[in-house]
């Protein structure tokens, strides 16, 4: 599995064309569509990074907001002292460290504990940040003034998404990716074949967390004024889960299928019916569980399989979670 297959080359070319098209967008529109595209790119990066870990392991991580907020705060705290790229790195490292600690505490035991723990993680970090801010600095928010504009943010997010994809692709070809596939299928088997399952999961969680931290750091200049409740907004975690699962997490590009329509939908809902956001999210969760257990891409693959019904199956797609 070392050489590129024709399909991989084809996906690569299509991807490059899409990236080029998105990168050119700021030259045509600087208003609504640019801002919407930044949102879509943000969630594309977040969901892909989330899927990096949660796709193969089936652990539902709700820690996204915590990593994201840490990245944002890394920039907010250091913007007067250090150059922006360094701070992005700091955000990544800080988020990865947090992921390592959380992973070490929870990934050795059952998946439910992990969900429960990550559910409150963003709130915990938020409380700690607000407390230390009011205790040591005496003010609640941080100002971030840079010359980074909306289009730079778009380009950075685009680059981040590409890097996440490349990383995911490299991981899939590596020993770690192979180990994750076995763990996802049957953890007991993985343990018996000599895989240090906890180590593999923690490592992957840290990689995923670092990327989310970077996304948070990139977004900091857009907020201009950073406060704990907005940086550690738990909604980010839930939206990422919905979008990724809606698209499907079996393929790394699956979440994109969910990100684009759902970001647009949430944009419409939050501007026209702000009181109905929760209801929409609730219905989305229920729809995923009852109608699309493998996401849109999973459903499409299912249909394709059915069309090929009479032909002999070409090397079966790994069926981890049949509907």
């Amino acid at each position: 599995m070392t050489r590129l297959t024709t399909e991989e080359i084809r996906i690569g070319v299509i991807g490059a064309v899409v990236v080029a098209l998105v990168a050119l967008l700021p030259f045509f529109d600087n208003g609504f569509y640019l801002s919407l595209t930044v949102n879509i790119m943000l969630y594309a990066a977040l969901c892909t990074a989330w899927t990096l870990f949660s796709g193969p392991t089936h652990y539902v991580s709700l820690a996204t907001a915590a990593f994201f907020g840490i990245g944002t705060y890394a920039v907010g705290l250091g913007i007067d002292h250090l150059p922006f790229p360094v701070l992005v790195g700091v955000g990544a490292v800080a988020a990865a460290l947090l992921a390592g600690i959380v992973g070490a505490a929870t990934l050795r035991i059952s998946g439910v504990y992990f969900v429960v723990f990550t559910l409150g993680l963003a709130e915990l970090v938020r409380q700690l940040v607000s407390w230390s801010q009011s205790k040591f600095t005496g003010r609640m928010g941080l100002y971030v003034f840079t010359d980074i504009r909306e289009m730079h943010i778009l380009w950075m997010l685009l680059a981040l998404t590409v890097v996440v994809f490349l990383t995911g692709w490299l991981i899939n070809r590596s020993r770690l990716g192979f180990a994750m596939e076995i763990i996802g299928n049957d953890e007991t088997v993985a343990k018996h074949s000599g895989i240090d399952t906890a180590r593999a999961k923690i490592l992957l969680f840290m990689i995923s967390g670092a990327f989310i931290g970077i996304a948070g750091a990139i977004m900091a200049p857009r907020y201009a004024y950073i406060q704990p409740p907005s940086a550690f907004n738990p909604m980010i975690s839930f939206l990422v889960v919905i979008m990724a699962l809606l698209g499907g997490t079996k393929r790394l590009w699956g979440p994109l299928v969910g990100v684009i329509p759902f970001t647009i939908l949430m944009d419409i809902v939050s501007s026209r019916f702000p009181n109905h956001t929760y209801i929409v999210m609730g219905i989305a969760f229920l729809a995923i569980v009852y109608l699309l257990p493998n996401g849109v891409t999973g459903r499409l693959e299912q249909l394709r399989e059915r069309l090929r019904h009479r032909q002999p199956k070409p090397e079966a797609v790994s069926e981890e979670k049949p509907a």
Partner: protein
Amino acid sequence: MTILVTGILLGGTYALIAMGLTLQYGVARIMNLANGETFVAACFIAFWLFTAYHINPLLGLLVIAPLAFVVNGAIYWFLLKPLVDRAKNRGQLEVDSILATFGLLFLLQGLMILGFGGAYFSYTFLAERFVILGSAYGLNRVVAFAVAAIIAAALYVYLFHTRQGTAVRAVAVDPTSANLVAIDVARTAMIAFALGGALTACGGALLSTFYTFNASMGVVFTMKALIIVIMGGVGDVRGAVIAAMVLGITETAVATLIDPGLTLAATYALFILVLMVRPQGIFGRQQS
């Protein structure tokens, strides 16, 4: 001393919601993340009964508990049981039920926000002094604790001294074996889930007598209940009661001694400690 008593009084309410969750997760095998919404809904119903009809919240329990029983039973039977039947293994059921109850959480929370807005509500009930060991406490807190204790005792009798309660405990230990000794597992699981909802609702109605509540605080209580359940050992009612007291005291201590903004941090510290030292819970047995 004041901290200890306040903590224990608070722990009484926590114990009810945690017992509810531990029944739902331990017996019906559903990690119900929408449990906090049942809790908040009960707060609002108690508030509504009291302000609109002058019905004493303690009498209101007679309405709220059966209502929660029926609603939760229906949720289990129509929404969650299909997931139980569909799941090929425990792991998949866990993921599915977590996502489905998240859906319920947001749906219910959204409906309550639509109905009541984001404002905080409270009402005055038995706001009198009550002296324990030389310090004064709110009478409503003491009454809430007493009622919680009575409900907990009734649950204990039900689980350990009735035939149906024994069946519930049998399903908690092993659903497959329970099936072999002619226990209707699906029905027992539904009863346990419904009962869990009723207990949670009682906790909510009692809490509303001395606490300001709003439509979006359900998640916080779900978190607390989850931590208590894990601390006490999944499916273990006695463990849940003790863990609830520990949590109540810790929270009160941190809020009074350090900073009220750090209660969740304290809860988490406890949680991490438990996960590191005794992931099977205080009374839990080591799992193979």
